[in-house]
């Protein structure tokens, strides 16, 4: 689709490792070893729980994260779209919402006090919390399709906010 993000495989790596979605000039990596939510979080199974973090798409829009805070404790049952915290970065602010129905078990305390790993290692040490859920989640390829479908609207939303 003219103007939308492109989808290609990084050369030199195994074909199944990851996909890349082009946000303008920026390549957002989408590893295929985990699942995704349309609200731009990854969920990686670690035994019986999922570890949850921001995708490269999220981090690219946030840029340098300054501040992260959670408004609920660990061991809390949550509903999808329930408010659970806030984030602020150099360019953006956002409320944070539960990506699905489930139970948040524990938060990454290190990242809660120093959110730098969100920018330096968003798929690894930058994880946010651990969650139990049985809601359906997206594969990497499905998530990239969501990015493709929503990229124009996202740009419009951002541009709209800047023009208001």
């Amino acid at each position, binding site marked *: 689709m003219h103007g939308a993000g492109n989808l290609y495989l990084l050369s030199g790596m195994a074909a199944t490792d990851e996909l890349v979605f082009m946000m303008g000039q920026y390549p957002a990596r989408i590893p295929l070893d985990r699942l995704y939510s349309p609200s731009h979080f990854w969920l990686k199974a670690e035994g019986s729980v999922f570890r949850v973090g921001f995708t490269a798409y999220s981090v690219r*829009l946030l840029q340098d994260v300054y501040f992260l805070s959670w408004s609920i404790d660990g061991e809390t049952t949550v509903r999808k779209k329930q408010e659970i915290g806030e984030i602020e970065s150099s360019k953006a602010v956002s409320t944070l919402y539960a990506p699905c129905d489930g139970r948040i078990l524990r938060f990454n305390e290190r990242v809660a006090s120093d959110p730098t790993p969100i920018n330096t290692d968003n798929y690894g040490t930058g994880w946010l919390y651990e969650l139990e859920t049985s809601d359906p989640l997206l594969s990497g390829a499905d998530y990239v399709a969501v990015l493709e479908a929503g990229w124009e609207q996202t740009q419009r939303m951002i541009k709209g906010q800047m023009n208001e």
Partner: protein
Amino acid sequence: MAGKKITVVISQAPGRNPTKRNLEEELAAALLVESDVDVSLVPHLNDLTADHSGLLFLKGVPGDMVVLSWLFPRAARWILDRNGVKGQLGTSLLKPADEDEEAGTEAERAEESRPNAIGALNAPKRKIYCIDLRDQNDPRVVLDEIRRIAREATVQTVDLDLMSWIGGSPAPAQMQRYLNPFAPNGAPAVPANGHTPVAAPNGANRIHSSPFGLINGADLTGLPATPASGPAADDALRRRWYPIIDYSRCTNCMACIDFCLFGVYGVDAQDRILVEQQDNCKKGCPACSRVCPENAIIFPEHKTPAIAGADVERDANFKIDLSKLFGAPTAIEVAAAERDQELLNDGREAVGLSVGIPKRRTEQPQQRDQLDDLMDDLDKLGL
């Protein structure tokens, strides 16, 4: 020898906040002795009713007008317009503390450049300047701005009352009648004894020893008491809650009238949307403002600045809100939940999203061609 005069109206904050009252009094006292300014007090604009004397006064002001209130300027402007107090947008150079120069001119350009807006009807050529007193601590800053506006005023008004004694010094009784045409109960004032002290221009006078009156107010000592036969004092003005349409943004899409299930909206003789039954509006409910695609609905008393009529500030600290991306409920979902709450409170049934939900225009004709520009612009913006 009628000069160019502007009218300054101070719309008093509701309640009895002493800091706000002090600012109002300092401004009023200083403006009393400005030669090209006529100053008057009215109650809080949002709470005025159609038959209130303060509103009748406002409608009678012919020329340029500066309205000082405790509301966002956009809210004040469109409350006035709704009540038949119409004019062109006057631009004040006063800025809230954290806003920068460009933002003000952007707001002004914004009002002129929305092509699909239906605009205010029959706005006369005079200018109305609205200033939000919540942004200003220093009365001198406000006074300087009023003087600047007065200098640029272009509308000549001939005030027949003024003409009759402009050559000499007005007697105290004349001054009293001129400044305070309405007594506490809203009827034209007739001073009991005709002798009221004129405000001395030394700044030391307090409001309550001057002939200056609170329209419909009773907080003054030392004034001859005009028998009040109506409601006791202006603290009897009930707080009101109702939407105000910003016609510089409204495109007459009718999403609001479809959505509101309480009969607040209607249409006028020209089929333009208007807020018909203000008092049908459920107190505290802002739901319809969320469904308006142009953000043209203002609830001046709402705690969220964007809903209360603030212009978005464009300063260095501006940050994009990514909540919509990160899984927030949509504005429509929030609006439907608020509406359901009001329905249930009323003993009616909740309807969720099944009634009166606007269908969003998903294709926007020109956007396709501009898509590549969008991406390049975003890259240039450093996103």
